């Protein structure tokens, strides 16, 4: 039998799907074929069981419609054989005198659905379409199943996800959902999984941050303990914190406020008042230009401009990479070397621009190596 014209227009490139009807009732088989052919399927009919079983092998149908009342054939047996050997052929049981018992039996044996012969054409088509989808999916699963089983040897989230999706799909099919919906569902699940992975990442990040903070606070507690949690030790504690963190982080100040029972406001007043404290992270290296009187008289301002132009930052600032902080100090006490700049622990007497550049470059290099 041929495909109807209208369907052929739309599906010319796709070979039509085969459906086999095995039924002794010729008039029903004919009307059924008609309905299905209208739906775009190629239908082959067999009058008895033997012919029918042969057809299943030769025609390679996606769906088979079976009448269990037919002579010469043990339908539950056929159904079992089908599910074992050819799972991609989806059986639908269709009968004239349907009873609940026979329906249950056939479903148990692996039938996809159970219809009565009084079924309306729309219902028939709908059921067949679903059965065809399942068949296609089973075929697909069989093929990908091979690939997946290989990939399974190297476990990976992505393939686990895929397998899970397939399980869900199979389950959903038996619930009567369409493939398209399932694909949407799958895509949704995938995005959901991604979202959770991201959240998990964030949670882990937060966990790390909390751990860091915890370690910070433990370190601060050790400092506080040194001074016996005395209120009057605030400046000493802050000096230790400044030395340890290279600045005064807010969470640390909050912690100290609680531990020493000093209002946070008070702590900020102290931190702002004294020169040694910084409320922003300082660089890993400090360039201190001495602006003591002796240095000033011997040209500290020029030295400061040179250093500032070289580092690209103003006194008191830290560069973006947090490698250098440029500072002025009131006296380093090396007045004999004036004008003097201290870079980390090393003193330099009135270095020229190229000399400064050399020192800065070598420090950067050291850092890159480390």
């Amino acid at each position, binding site marked *: 039998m041929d495909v109807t014209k209208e369907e052929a227009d739309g599906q010319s490139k796709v070979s039509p799907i085969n459906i086999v009807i095995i039924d002794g009732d010729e008039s029903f088989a004919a009307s059924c074929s008609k309905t299905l052919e209208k739906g775009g399927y190629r239908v082959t009919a067999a009058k008895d069981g033997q012919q029918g079983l042969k057809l299943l092998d030769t025609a390679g149908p996606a769906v088979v419609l079976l009448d269990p009342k037919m002579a010469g054939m043990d339908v539950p047996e056929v159904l079992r054989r089908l599910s074992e050997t050819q799972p991609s052929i989806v059986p639908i049981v269709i009968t004239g005198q349907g009873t609940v018992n026979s329906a249950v039996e056939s479903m148990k044996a692996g039938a996809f659905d159970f219809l009565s012969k009084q079924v309306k054409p729309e219902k028939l088509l709908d059921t067949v379409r679903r059965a065809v989808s399942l068949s296609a999916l089973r075929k697909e699963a069989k093929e990908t199943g091979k690939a997946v089983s290989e990939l399974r040897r190297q476990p990976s989230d992505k393939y686990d996800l895929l397998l899970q999706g397939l399980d869900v799909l199979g389950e959903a099919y038996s619930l009567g959902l369409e493939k398209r919906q399932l694909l949407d569902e799958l895509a949704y699940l995938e995005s959901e999984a991604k979202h959770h992975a991201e959240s998990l990442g964030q949670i882990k990040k937060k966990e790390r941050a909390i751990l860091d903070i915890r370690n910070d606070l433990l370190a601060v507690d050790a400092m506080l303990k040194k001074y016996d949690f005395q209120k009057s030790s605030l400046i000493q504690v802050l000096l230790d914190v400044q030395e340890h963190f290279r600045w005064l982080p807010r969470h640390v100040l909050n912690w100290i406020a609680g531990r020493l029972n000093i209002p946070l406001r008070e702590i900020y007043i102290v931190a702002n*008042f004294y020169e040694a404290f910084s409320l922003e992270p300082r660089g890993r290296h400090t360039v201190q230009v001495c602006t003591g009187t002796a240095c000033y008289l011997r040209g500290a301002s020029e030295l400061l401009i040179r250093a500032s132009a070289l580092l690209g930052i103003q006194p008191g600032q830290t560069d973006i990479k947090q490698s250098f902080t440029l500072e002025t100090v009131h006296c380093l006490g090396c*007045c004999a070397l004036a004008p003097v700049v201290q870079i980390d622990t090393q003193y330099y007497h009135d270095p020229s621009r190229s000399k400064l550049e050399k020192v800065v470059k070598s420090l950067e290099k050291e850092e890159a190596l480390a």
Partner: protein
Amino acid sequence: MTRFKTPADIAKLRKKIVSQRNSKPTWLAVCAGTGCRAYGAVILAESLEHEVDKRNVGDKIGVRRTGCHGFCQRGPVIVVEPSGACYLGTQPKNVPDIIDNVLSGKGDVEHLTYLDEQNGKRLSLLEEIPFYKYQKRIVLANNPLIDASEILDYIAVGGYAALVKALTKMTPDSVLQEIKDANLRGRGGGGFPAGRKWETTRNAHGEPKYVIVNADEGDPGAYMDRSLLEGNPHGVLEGLIIGAYAIGATEGFIYVRQEYPLARMHTVKALDQAREYGLLGKNILGSDLSFDVTIHRGAGAFVSGESSALMSAIEGHVGEPRPKYIHTSEKGIYGKPSCLNNVETWANVPHIINKGAKWFCSMGTKGSKGTKIFSLVGKVKNTGLVEVPMGISLRDIIFKIGGGVPNDKKFKAVQTGGPSGGVIPEPLLDLPVDFDELTKVGSMMGSGGMIVMDEDTCMVDAARYYTNFLAHESCGKCVPCREGTRQMLKILDNIASGWGQEGDIELLEELSEFMETASLCALGQSAPFPVRSTIKYFRDEYDQHIREKCCPAAVCSALIAYEIDQEKCVKCGACERNCPVNAINKSEDKVFTIVQEKCIKCGACFTACPKKFSAVIKVRAHSIPKQPAGAGALLKQ
């Protein structure tokens, strides 16, 4: 290690250590103060130790890392004991020579000794060098003799003998009387008699009583206190313990600047050692005296050096001074009687107790007794720490000890007393160093910073420098100081930028008077001193800035420009390489010129140009930018 239980224990131990020290015939005392460290003194000491080890002559030569010897200009300094030879500017490459000469007994390594520029003679002995010859080193004397991190060294040179004497032979009253008789005046700035302060604290009601060492040496260009704590912390501590005994204090504080890590380290170590030997703690040397000391780090605020601000900082607060209707000696830390003295003041105490008030009074002038340490810095040949008897003239300090102004420049003025002091011009140089005399001429003794200025120093700029410092460091509590310094700075900025107007000087004078009268603490009251004294002695320089828009010393950058003297230029290109803004133009035939529009007047080219050519020169500014609207002083309307 045993705790001293009786005073006799110290004497016994001293005997033992001295014989140990004497077992090595020669000691090399390497200065390891911050100044010499900057020159590489630590590496030098290490290579000396290494060389001694290598030659296996540890029984003949000992190496000692000591505190500051004072002659920072020529560091690293080594003094050979007992010969007294002094090596200057020594480098690790000289180490084999030094050891060779010591071992062979050949004498001194001549090329490392002091060269007298006037007659070309080498002076090998420390006492012969002019820098040391005119000094009288009492407080600093022990610095070269001891390793500051070793209490035994201090005990060996007679340390803690004064404490023993005070505890065994004197009552607290007689100690106090001795200090009063010596007329020891506070070395930190004010010159307030220490004995009177001690007495007030002793008689004040309230327990416990505190004694405090003020080592918050905030004056730029002064580092006497640091050198004392770095070089001889036990000397200061001994003075403090004696003070506690006389006053009846049970707790002490040492307030050290954060910027002095080495001084802090040595002080912490000294306290630990003193505790171990029972010189701090309960029943010191078996007496009734119980006393302990805590170290407190300052966090960088000039005002914290003021007594009430310092005490507030020790309590953990912002270091702001408070009005002193009641003296801190009566109500200081936590409202208890507290006696605060400067490092140098405490360091003088053991010497007075040991040798008596009479001996101390034999030095100095009528009102100022003893010696004073100055840090002689700036435009002077021999930069360093000098200890001189009170009453010596400024001229002697600067020209005899300091060697005068380098590079054949003319002396212009000397600034004493740090940012709170004033300048003293050439005609007043014969003034004796004395608390009262210096105050009379508009300066002050201060903590002992002595900054020499030559003809290349602009007085307006110097005043601006100090005022900027004070404006920045003003704690902001009282209006006269906070606003006064800011307004002064604005006016001085204007003058230095070429925007000065007639009447600016008078306005500055008016402001000065107001600040002196109305400020809360001594720092505010003395804040206008630099401006006042520069106006007093160098008014013409201010006038030139204001009327002619000219800076005679060629310092104020707005009033000068840099140019290249084509006749002197040898086209080496050093200026071009060093210019940070590419303002130096090189023409095809290699003629270098400075593009004035681009120039930021950083002076990089001036520094880079080799001294023998000096082709980059300073000239008067070609034009002075207009004053932006609203940039003037707020006071003038």
